[in-house]
Each structure stands twice: as structure tokens, then as C-alpha cells.
């Protein structure tokens, strides 16, 4: 495959990796909050976070378009203040991937955090350590497998993002054409050789992801089964 034919592969890897980093940084806070705290609006937050999983990607993309499009509140502000246009750029693909994939990370991370024995957290608190130290020194080391599984899941979902990406980033070869969109494009153009190559690559990545997830999940309870209760 030529460099231009490989462009969708590199674009997809770049978009999904950046989207995953953003999703982890933005999502870990809400994940901890949902796992630990009872607060007003908790159910609303939970619902908003879950919504992108349930909504059809095209509907999600439509909402995003309303938000960051040139006439949308965020889009028009960005254009006036910074002269930026997001729609139909690869950055828009990142935003679409973040919104579509972050819920998977948050849900997995939250479950992993909830799994940590609350007495351990209580013990750490009575020993005088700050909430941040308790999270970094106790919760995260014990929940890291589940959190990492969430990261992998999030990345895989971002890598395969299609519907929302198509709506907000479009299908511009060499600029915004990601792998999933390129496959669609190749099939439309009856270019089966190109479609086959991309499909093989995506399938291979998916298999690796599944193996990775099994590894992470399989030893998830290692501490608890060994710890003498």
C-alpha cells in the first residue's frame, strides 16, 4: 500500500489515541465521583454519561454538529474568538471519538474503583492521607487492571468510530478519512483490494484488544482471592 493509501490507518491511530488520552483525563474524575459520592444530580450525571452508548452514532453526530457547527454555540464562539473552524477537520474526529468512547472508559473505571474494598479507603483516610493520596496510593494501584481495561475498550471504540465522525469530520481523503470511513468509501467505489487490506488491519487490532482485555480481566481478582480475610 502506498503512503496515501495508508493515511487512514495513521489518522485513525492518531485520532483514537489522542481521544483516549482526553477521555481518561476528563473521565477519571467523574468515574471516581460516581463510584464514591452521593450527591444531588448524581443520577443525571450517570444518565448523561451513559447516553452516548445508547444513542445511535448518527444521532450523536448530529447533536455534536449542532454544538460545534459554525452556527452552533461552541462553534460560533470558537470562530469569533480564535478564528477556528472545527467541523470537517481531524480535530472534529477526535471530539466525536471522545464523546462516543469516553462512556466505556468511565463505566469500566467506575466499576473497578467500586470494587476496591471501602475499608481500605477508610483505613487510608484515618491514617491521615489526603483524598488525592488515597486515590493515587490505594485506589488506583488496586483498581488499575479494571481501569486499564477501560482504557483499552475506550481506545478500540474510538478506533472504529464511524457515524458521528462522518457527520462532524466528513470524508475528506488525506484529511479526515479515518479507517472505518475509508472502508465504507472503498466499498462504495468497488475497490475491494483497498477494503480488504483495511478490514484485515482493523480485525487484527480487534483480536489483540480482546486478548489484552482477557488478560486484564482474568487476574482482576488476584489480590482478593489471595488476601486472607
Amino acid at each position, binding site marked *: 500500500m502506498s503512503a496515501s493509501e495508508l493515511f487512514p490507518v495513521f489518522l485513525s491511530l492518531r485520532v483514537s489515541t489522542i481521544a483516549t488520552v482526553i477521555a481518561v483525563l476528563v473521565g477519571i474524575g467523574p468515574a471516581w465521583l460516581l463510584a464514591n459520592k452521593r450527591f444531588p444530580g448524581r443520577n443525571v450525571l450517570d444518565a448523561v454519561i451513559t447516553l452516548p452508548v445508547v444513542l445511535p452514532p448518527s444521532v450523536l453526530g448530529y447533536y455534536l454538529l449542532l454544538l460545534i457547527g459554525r452556527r452552533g454555540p461552541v462553534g460560533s464562539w470558537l470562530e469569533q474568538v480564535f478564528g477556528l473552524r472545527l467541523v470537517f477537520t481531524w480535530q472534529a474526529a477526535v471530539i466525536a471519538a471522545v464523546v462516543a468512547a469516553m462512556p466505556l472508559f468511565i463505566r469500566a473505571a467506575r466499576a473497578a474503583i467500586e470494587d476496591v*474494598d471501602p*475499608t*481500605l479507603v*477508610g*483505613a*487510608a*483516610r*484515618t*491514617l*491521615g*492521607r*489526603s483524598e488525592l*493520596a488515597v486515590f493515587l*496510593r*490505594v485506589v488506583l*494501584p*488496586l483498581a488499575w487492571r479494571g481501569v486499564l481495561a477501560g482504557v483499552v475498550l475506550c481506545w478500540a471504540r474510538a478506533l472504529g468510530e464511524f457515524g458521528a465522525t462522518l457527520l462532524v469530520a466528513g470524508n475528506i481523503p488525506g484529511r479526515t478519512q479515518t479507517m472505518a470511513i475509508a472502508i465504507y468509501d472503498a466499498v462504495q467505489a468497488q475497490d475491494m483490494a483497498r477494503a480488504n487490506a483495511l478490514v484485515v488491519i482493523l480485525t487484527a487490532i480487534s483480536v489483540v484488544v480482546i486478548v489484552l482485555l482477557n488478560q486484564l480481566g482474568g487476574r482482576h481478582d488476584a*489480590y482478593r482471592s*489471595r*488476601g*486472607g*480475610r
Partner: protein
Amino acid sequence: MLRAEIELELDDFSLDVRFSMQNEVLALLGPSGAGKTLTIASIAGLQHPQRGRIEFDGDIWFDSATRRRVRPQNRGVGIVFQNYALFPHLSVRQNVAFGLKRVPEGERRQRVRRLLEEMRLEGLEERRPQELSGGQQQRVALARALAPRPRILLLDEPFAAVDATVRMRLLDLVREVHETHRIPIVLITHAIEEAYALADRMAVLEQGKLLQIGPTDEVFRRPVSHRVARIVGTRNILNGTVVDRVAEETRRTAETRKAAAREMRPSGSRVRTEGGLELEIAEPYPVGTPITLCMRPSRLDVVTATGAVRGERRTAIGLVAARVERVQSTGDRYELLLQPTPHGERLEVELSADAFARRRVEPGGEVRVAISHDAVHSFRNEYPAQRLEDARAL
């Protein structure tokens, strides 16, 4: 030192206790589900009562009236949890040093070393908790809780998961901790022996209520209610009714009868138990009072059916004919189960091996149970007659 008023409501449980303590060991005794763990979690700040106030040495840790809530980080409470709650991903040394973040490196190392010595954990510094025995884990948890020099130590069923010999050594260790660290200790337990071995005072809890608090010995000897008597393990609990007042005279022994006759005043009561025993007790109650009698097995004695009643046993306020149903030896003590004849509640009597040998008691034999004055503790029954049945079913 500590004053706690805690009112806490959960979905299916409510806790309402108030007590205070000095620099002493206080045992919280009660069956599981009594609210003991919730009580210490509230003291530590890991649970927030709906109402109440928790004060330590003039510092207010919690006050629902002013909405004050000091975070667990700033209370200076050391806890040993029931499952130890050691950090499984950290070594013994790291576990103990966990609460010493603000202590300078050199002193931190020294303090950890000294505590590990005190808890006899030398050589295990680099092990992970799951590589230790139950007793060792327990001692790591104790060292970890003591490292930041807490102002009070809370122990949640610390001996539940270790075997008897380890338990004895841990009991000694906790006593040493109280002496060397000079901090109050709250000890949760459901085993009366542990409370008795360690505690200066004892608080008895059941279903979220504090039933009695006082010096350990006092609570043990003089429970104020049927429920407390059961929880502290009183074995001869008899329900009955006062049927008569007893004149002082009849309670006295033959030697003092003349003297007593001169000042015959009503004192004491005659009680008929539900099983049909008639006993006299020292406390004067009005006729008809429902009453519970507690008799500690070690304070009862037996004499053979035909033998003379001599010496101190003459002061017995009751002699009950009984048949020996069972004899059980626990080494240096003998436990007898006696069935009064022709009827009456079964009684448990505990004799030393010596006394047992001298009295020549045999299973199936006929004896008399000598019930002396100080063996009987009585209190008005808090239950109406109907609920006595429920109480006994517990």
C-alpha cells in the same frame, strides 16, 4: 476524654448510643448487628450520624447542631479493622509507614522499626500482607494504626479470626499497648472473656441501643436486665415472682437468731420461679413484682443429699434438692448440670477440681444445691409476662 452521642439511621437499622470514656479500655460488647462497628466508624469519621455530637479532649469532631464534621484525616484516630484492611499491594514496612507522610524520613524509618520490634515483626518487613499468618497480619494492622501516634485506638473484633493461643498473646499485646502508649482504647467484641480480660469498663449494646455501661466486673456480676444478662453470658437466669416478704429473722443463721428476733423487721423477699423453685433473696421487693434471678455457677455449691450442712455453707439462703444430670470437666474446673427435684429450672454449678473431688459428686446422684446470699443477683424484670417467652427464645 471521649464523649459520644450518636444517632444514626440506615435503611433497616437505627443506632442510638451515648457514652463517655476516660483514658481506659472500654469494651463494646454485643451480638453481631448490635451497632458496634457503626459506633466506632462514627467516632473515626467514616460514618456520619444524622444527629449527635462527638467530642474528644475538648475538640469537637462532630456536631449535628453546628454541622461540624472533622474529616477522618484530622481526628487522630487509629483503627484496627476486623479484616485488618492491610494494603495488599504494599509491604509490611510500607503499610506501617503509610500514615507517616508528614514525618521526616529519618524519624519515619526509626518509628517504623521501633513499632515492628514492639509487635515482634522483625524480619517480615518486606513481606506482603497475604504472605503472613492471621496473627502477624493483626500485629501489622496494630503497628500501622499506632504509627501516626493516634489520640485514641479503636479495635474492631481484633481477635475474631485467630486461634486461641494467638488470641492470648494478642490480648497481652493490647494491654501492653494501653500501658506504653497511654491512649484510650475502644475494643469491639462479642466474646465476654475478651472484654473481661482487657476492659476497665464495658458497654453492652443490642439492636442499636446501649443497654448498660459500667465497670466490667459490675456489668458482669450485676446485669440490669434480662438481655444484658444473656449477652454477658450469665448462665443461671431464672424468672419468677415475689410471693412473700421475708422477715430478717428467717434469713439469719441459727447462731444469730436471738439477736435477729429482737429487731424483727421485714427484709428480703421470697421468690417463686416459673419452674417452681422457692428461693429467698436479700432485696426487699413488693409482693407480685416480676423478678429475674441470676446465679453465677462458680458461686453455687453442692452438698450431698444426706451430708450435714457445715461451716460457711450454713449461710446458704437456700438448699435445693437436685439430681446430677451431667458432669463436664474443663481441666481444673468441673461443670455440673443439676435438675432440681421434684421440679424447678436446671442449674449450672461450677466447682474447682479439688472441691469436686471432696464432694464425691456422681452423674445421676442426688445432691443439694447450696445457694448463698452473694451468689444471687436480682432485678425487676423489664418484660411484661407475655414477652418473657420471646426473651427466652433469643
